[in-house]
């Protein structure tokens, strides 16, 4: 089993074994044969269990974008160890979309009320208000006015 390959995407594990010129893929006890008919320009024509499948695949770091039959999936290649732990920032308020911070209304140590606007962001035609989810005290502020932030970047952390 020299070329045995185990790949994890998100919470799923796929095994691929070479078999002659082709491959055998297994997941959750299900096994299918796979033949690569053609692969170029980020497009693959595969024969999966005798059925021809055309897949467009792109890679960007751990991300894989796959389009089959017009449906696109974004998969994240993982180590396969712990799953579902991403972005567990207790009390953290994250940016729901990429954009620019328009104003920050609080400082570290401020006492805030549930629903109070802590920060406003701007992106394209929209203004987004980041509001306190409950009464509490601001622990850290990670964003400043004018700063560009990515989606899911932590903006403000609250004390628990």
């Amino acid at each position: 089993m020299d070329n045995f390959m185990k790949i994890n995407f998100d919470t799923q594990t796929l095994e691929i074994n070479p078999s002659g010129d082709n491959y055998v893929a297994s997941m959750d006890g299900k096994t299918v044969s796979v033949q690569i008919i053609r692969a170029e320009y980020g497009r693959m024509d595969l024969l999966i269990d005798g059925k021809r499948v055309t897949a467009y695949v792109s890679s960007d770091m751990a991300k894989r974008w796959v389009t089959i039959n017009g449906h696109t999936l974004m998969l994240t290649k993982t180590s396969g160890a712990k799953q579902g732990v991403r972005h567990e920032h207790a009390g953290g308020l994250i940016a729901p979309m990429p954009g620019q911070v328009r104003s920050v209304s609080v400082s570290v140590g401020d006492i805030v009320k549930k629903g109070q606007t802590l920060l406003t962001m701007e992106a394209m035609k929209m203004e987004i208000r980041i509001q306190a989810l409950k009464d509490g005290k601001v622990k850290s502020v990670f964003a400043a006015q004018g700063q560009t932030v990515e989606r899911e970047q932590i903006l403000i952390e609250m004390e628990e």
Partner: protein
Amino acid sequence: MFNKILIANRGEIAIRIMRACRELGIKTVAVYSSADEHAQHVQLADESILLGSAAPKESYLNADALIQAALASKADAIHPGYGFLSENASFALKVESANLTFIGPSADSIRAMGDKAEAKILMKQSGVPTVPGFEGLESDDDFKKAAKEIGYPVLVKASAGGGGKGMRVVNAENELSEAIESARSEALNSFGDERLLIEKYLADAHHIEFQVFGDKHGNLVHLFERECSIQRRHQKIIEETPSPLLTPELREQMGQAAVAAAKAVNYYNAGTIEFIVDSQPSTFNLQPFYFLEVNTRLQVEHPITELTAGIDLVQWQIRIAAGEKFPFVQSDFHQHGHAIECRVYAEDPSNGFLPSTGSLLQFIEPHGPGIRVDSGFSTGSEVNHFYDPLLAKLIVHAENRETAIQRMQTALSEFVVHGVVTNIDFMQAVMAHEDFAQGKVSTRWVEQTLRSLLPDVQQQADQLQSLIAAALADVVFVGSKSQPAVSNETDPFNPWKQTKSYRN
């Protein structure tokens, strides 16, 4: 005719305008912000001028920089596209003051239609049906009396407004005072003008607009309707023409109303009269349609009119601006076939339709008979958060609505975008929905139906196929990289031959 036009816009609409210029033999000047240095519209223009930094107000909204660029490049005219400064009367005036031509209506027309209350009063005077309501009220008592007369639910909205700001739906009298207060405050903050108007709230309405087009010599026609009821966040995502809701009689009436509305402000160039159409007009014994507002510019969704009315709107915008007479009369126009537009956005329907940014790893547009793609991106383009996340407009034209839907479904399934999340699967779900097939879609439909439109967990077979493809891609393409597959090519020094066909 003009020798050179500066296009004060970016993305697909800048490119669309460039094509029209090129066909007319007119040189083009692109403008760009520092974020758009490598954008497609910059590459396609004859020349290009940097306006400023990425923030719109430093670049595409910077009126003085735009006029300066036009003068420096010796352009004769400025085409504003849509959005940005396209409906800014003072920009239009500034352009004309610099002895340049503004490709659009007069500054007076733009200004007259910018104030909702003023526009509504003007429409009433011109005999165009408007939503029952009152303008110019001040005291809470006056508003209460008015609301009672109209009948709840009612809508209070900013007179000077737009874009949903200073707008409140009021379902009963006890909510009215608070709604007025908050709407006033928002209106004052947004527009520096706290005046409100009150009108009947039409919940299950359709948004149907009419294209109008006229010259500076008094000729003005309408080019039929566009059904634009499929909206999210009060923005259109799918448009079609003809509207499945309109009867020939209603179309005739609305077309006449649209022409009357445009003539009321001596309109010329391309414009759109938006109407709200009640799908149950009998309920309140109301008119079947009401004037909503005028868009004094080229509309995003203009291609579906071009396809069905058989006229190039952008070419004619330019010709009219240059003073040409519009040679057609109303009876020259008929609707041919059916056209649908889907706006392909870099946005995530599962995440409240919020935009998605990134680098486009693959961007494959569908092509085929009856398919038109107006796009501003290609593989390698960056989608940033500074501007509207519209990637492309996918437009189909076919002999009837059923065939057009089939064509759109095929085309959507062939549109591959990797690197940003898009609404393609979402629009595919809309196309396949029975409500859409039956044309029963009001402006609140997406909101009400959203759950069933979000992508299902894919069938296990499909899911497995995707995983296999992703896994094998790493093997195949990385493998071919370490061993470049150019050895059997005619010229190993040809650097833009890509990874060759891989075969077992």
